[in-house]
């Protein structure tokens, strides 16, 4: 019976995962193939300079990367925004549906009347969230790496892996937050609203922190800061940052376990 809940959670999303996979491959291929239109076009670099610093920061160009360089292009188009946001959307949806959603639908009653502990149910569902988030990252990276050579877009395997893992870790943190909120409250609105709200607020804070001294302290506890810190697109895998983000994810999953174990189930 081990992994049976995990299997069901993934199987329930077979069609959706196929659609997301095809769309991500198409999107990433398009991003790569659009690169020649930007590369060596100084007009884009100049345009970026006219934008406020905030825009530069949230486009992942805060460390002085040029949008026309491979690393700057990939960061601004993929790794600083689109890829983590897409992964976040998918995993928050999964996490909400599988906690508060399953409780409201009533299927959780049937599931938990079987010989499976609440902890196991939460852990298997968390595993499904982590695995699907990782999958979306992996197929994106593979597409970028596969299409890159066609247009001379290459940042090296370690930068691809590092930036992708950081995007996946962003998904994990906010997906786990949705799990914790959904498991602890049983409310879909709290899970979706809380987790996506937190993702947006932290994203904006991360964009503003370098510009406003009073906000700089927020970086310490801002997941987005740790996703982007160390510029994985330049320097490859940021082990310590990833460990920190994985740790936050672990704490949130543990909170989800605790949150579901302690309370009455709703109908």
């Amino acid at each position, binding site marked *: *019976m081990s992994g*049976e*809940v995990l299997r*069901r959670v993934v199987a*329930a999303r077979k069609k959706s995962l196929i659609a997301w996979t095809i769309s991500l491959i198409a999107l990433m291929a398009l991003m790569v193939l659009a690169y020649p239109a930007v590369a060596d076009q100084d007009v884009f670099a100049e345009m970026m300079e006219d934008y406020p610093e905030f825009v530069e920061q949230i486009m992942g160009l805060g460390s002085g990367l040029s949008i026309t360089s491979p690393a700057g292009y990939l960061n601004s188009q993929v790794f600083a925004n689109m890829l983590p946001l897409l992964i976040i959307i998918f995993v928050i949806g999964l996490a909400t549906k599988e906690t508060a959603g399953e409780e409201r*639908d*009533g*299927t959780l*009653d*049937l*599931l*938990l*009347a*079987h*010989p*499976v*502990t609440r902890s196991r149910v939460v852990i298997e569902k968390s595993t499904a969230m982590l695995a699907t988030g990782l999958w979306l990252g992996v197929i994106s990276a593979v597409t970028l790496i596969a299409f890159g050579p066609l247009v001379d877009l290459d940042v090296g395997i370690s930068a691809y892996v590092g930036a992708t893992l950081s995007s996946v870790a962003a998904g994990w943190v906010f997906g786990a937050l949705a799990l914790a909120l959904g498991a602890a409250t049983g409310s879909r609105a709290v899970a979706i609203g809380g987790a996506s709200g937190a993702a947006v607020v932290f994203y904006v804070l991360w964009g503003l922190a370098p510009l406003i001294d009073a906000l700089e302290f927020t970086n310490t506890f801002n997941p987005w800061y740790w996703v982007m810190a160390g510029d994985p697109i330049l320097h490859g895998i940021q082990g310590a940052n990833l460990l920190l983000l994985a740790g936050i994810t672990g704490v949130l999953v543990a909170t989800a376990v605790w949150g579901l174990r302690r309370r*009455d*189930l709703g*109908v």
Partner: protein
Amino acid sequence: MTADSPQPTADSRQLDPRSGLRDGRRATAACLAITPTLALVTAIRLERLTKSYGKTRGITEVNLTVATGEVFGFLGPNGAGKTTTIRTLLDLIRPTSGKAEVLGLDSVDDSIAIHRRVGYLPGELALWEWMTTRQLLDHLGKLRGGIDTGYRDELIERFQVEPDRKIKDLSSGNKQKVGIIQAFMHKPELVILDEPTSGLDPLMQHATYRVIEEARAEGRTVFLSSHVLPEVERIAERVAIIRNGRVIEVETVDNLKARAVRHIEVHFGTPAATAATLNAIPGVTEATIAGETALVRIEGSMDPLIKALAPYEVRSLLTHETPLDEIFLAMYREDPDVR
């Protein structure tokens, strides 16, 4: 865990007192072997079980004992606390105070051990709509660590469920059938059914009763809730009646029937009985005549009425099933403490 476990095993039958007395050690060993069986004499025991959710809902100090091998009915109108009690047994919700024991195990501390040995049909059944019946039953079987599929397949056949259709394409009656199959398919020691026949056509209700009867014949216990008396009368041996969160009566079905109130409509030809004659018949609590039709309210056996009608021309006789409310009303008169 299979159905045989609660039944007396070869070990317990060997408990011949003479041989036991001759060999003290063997007797001790045999006693130890029988202890779990003894613990199972009670399938469900509720002690002052209370679950409060504010003022109106919930249950208050429910005491109840269901023996193993019994078919026990839990009767009450909607909102009386049946589902709350049942969900507490399965640790889906936890008691505010008091305790619930299922198969001798604590509902909170030993919930997983209980789930292993229990089959459950939720009152508001929800299934994973994207699955087929077969996938769903496989999934639930695997959650139990794999089950013998023989009985499951037999039930699929008997309930005429198409195993490869998606749940979302099934009518609510067919979904209910899938719910019943999953509750019985692993032959649990105790089956807890919350309103099992709601939404089923009479034929499938009958099929459900047969499955319940089979479980009973194999020594397994069935605890079912219902808001209709005839159903409980038909399949249960004992009944608890719950109202406003309190168990107001635990009674055998036979005794309940004896006390049941019935409404009878008698269409007279000539000669016709008078209201006074009818009111004088033992058991009749109220009789009125309008034209050729008499309305008679009778408690217990109908025999005195039928015998008393013999001298008259009776064109037709209609009996109406007792609405549950009437039974409750009868009880309120007996027990002024009940709200």
